[in-house]
């Protein structure tokens, strides 16, 4: 099993969720993060003092999947999140040893 993490632009979240659902994913978790990368930040000005704010608002999504579904999930995110401009974000794939569904106690692939 894999844990797939993606850092994406916030305004793509709902579409990615819909695409993943169509691809057979039954759940995901999303959180707000501040992203730093190649994409330039912005200037903020308060009473004449200018600040370079290098962090940009991004969303981090986390999907637990069976190995067999992992490639589909990755390509689905890739396609749906891509706008072609810098800052589209990254996908990371981590090994996942086990999953438990709390409600039922199911384990492993059954818990997904």
């Amino acid at each position, binding site marked *: 099993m894999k844990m797939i993490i993606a850092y994406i632009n916030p305004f793509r979240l*709902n579409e990615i969720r819909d695409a993943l659902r169509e691809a057979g994913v039954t759940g995901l978790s999303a959180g707000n993060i501040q992203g730093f990368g190649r994409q330039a930040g912005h200037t*903020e000005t*308060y009473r004449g003092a*200018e600040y370079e704010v290098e962090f940009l608002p991004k969303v981090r999504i986390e999907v637990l999947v069976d190995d067999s579904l992992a490639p589909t999930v990755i390509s689905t995110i890739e396609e749906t999140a891509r706008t072609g401009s810098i800052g589209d974000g990254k996908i990371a794939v981590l090994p996942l040893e086990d999953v438990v569904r709390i409600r039922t106690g199911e384990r492993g692939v059954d818990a997904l």
Partner: protein
Amino acid sequence: MDTGHTAWLLTCSALVLFMTPGLALFYGGMVRGRNVLAMLMKNYVAMGVVTVTWIVIGYSLAFSGDAGGLGLIGDLEFFALGELGFGTEIGLDDGEGYPDSVFLVFQLMFAIITPALISGAIAERMKFTSWVVFIAIWSIVVYAPMAHWVWGGGFIGSTDGTEIPGVGAIDFAGGLVVHINAGAAALALVLVLGPRLGWRSEIIRPHSLPLTVLGAGILWFGWFGFNAGSALAADGAAANAFLTTQIAAGVAALAWVLSEQVMHGRPTTLGFASGIVAGLVAITPAAGFVSPLWAGVIGLAAGVICFAALQLKFRFNFDDSLDVVAVHMVGGIVGALLLGLFAEAAIGGVDGAFFGAAEQFLRQVISIVIAVVFSFVATYVIAIIIDRTMGLRVSEDEERRGLDITLHEEQGYVLTE
């Protein structure tokens, strides 16, 4: 001079000024968090821009003597306040129970909030500089003439005395001048501007309803100055306007959430706040002309009809983002029409159709048509001109990143530092 009248009108002027910050919050809470400051700013800036345009020329166009007796526009006697500008106190003429400058400043507050009302329609996508230019022009070219026609001796408010045949419509505190005017202008501007990215496809939710609810509370509070102040005296007429305002607002808010309950199964806080404003809008033209229970009927109608009018933008596909048309244009029309039915000479000197003067209803209809058409057309022309020259709209990228950062280089909230 009467100190009681003066005290009351100064108080009312302050109350009406306070409505614009209230409106800013009302609108500001309804946009997404990345556009909150841009929304506040579009309201607040009216307090700067219109103060200048009004003092320089607007007041003169609206309220100095009618130019040529045509009933179309004021002469320029008070251009830059005329002799009252530099160097002569404006405050001591007490012809009508209070200093002239009180009337000037009371009317200024109306001139400020009217373009601010429009800002709800263009939320989340209009350039700030274009907005500033727009309201500067609009306050002179659209607002001042309308105020003159209705209140300044012009052809809508008069029955005679003008070259143009007088319409003889009545408008206590600004159903035509303020609300229908702002609502029709909002519609025109939105048609030129186009809808927000993601309109009807994405979830676009209010970012802070407590702000909106507070804004509605401030509006209710300030509206007493707006309506009861329009009696231009601390007397029974003011008291009646105060009471009718309270009743219409309360009833309309209830009617709105009841409509929601029936149509969607849930009353909402935003609905209650919206109903308050709808009721206040509808009673505005009528406050000094109808008796208390008829005010309740007007409130009821406003709550139900404005709620139904929310669907207009979906039916006709224009992104009137914060429903200026449904609340202000429709609400203003509801009030201006029902006034033609329920007005009663014993209250405000004019009878409506229910009290035997059917022609008053007709007068109201004509005045509404004129106001809607004039405001819509004039605003449309202004909008097109600005669009072709400076551009009305931010870029797609700016719209997506939010107007706060891109137009103002600020963030509304930094709660986690």
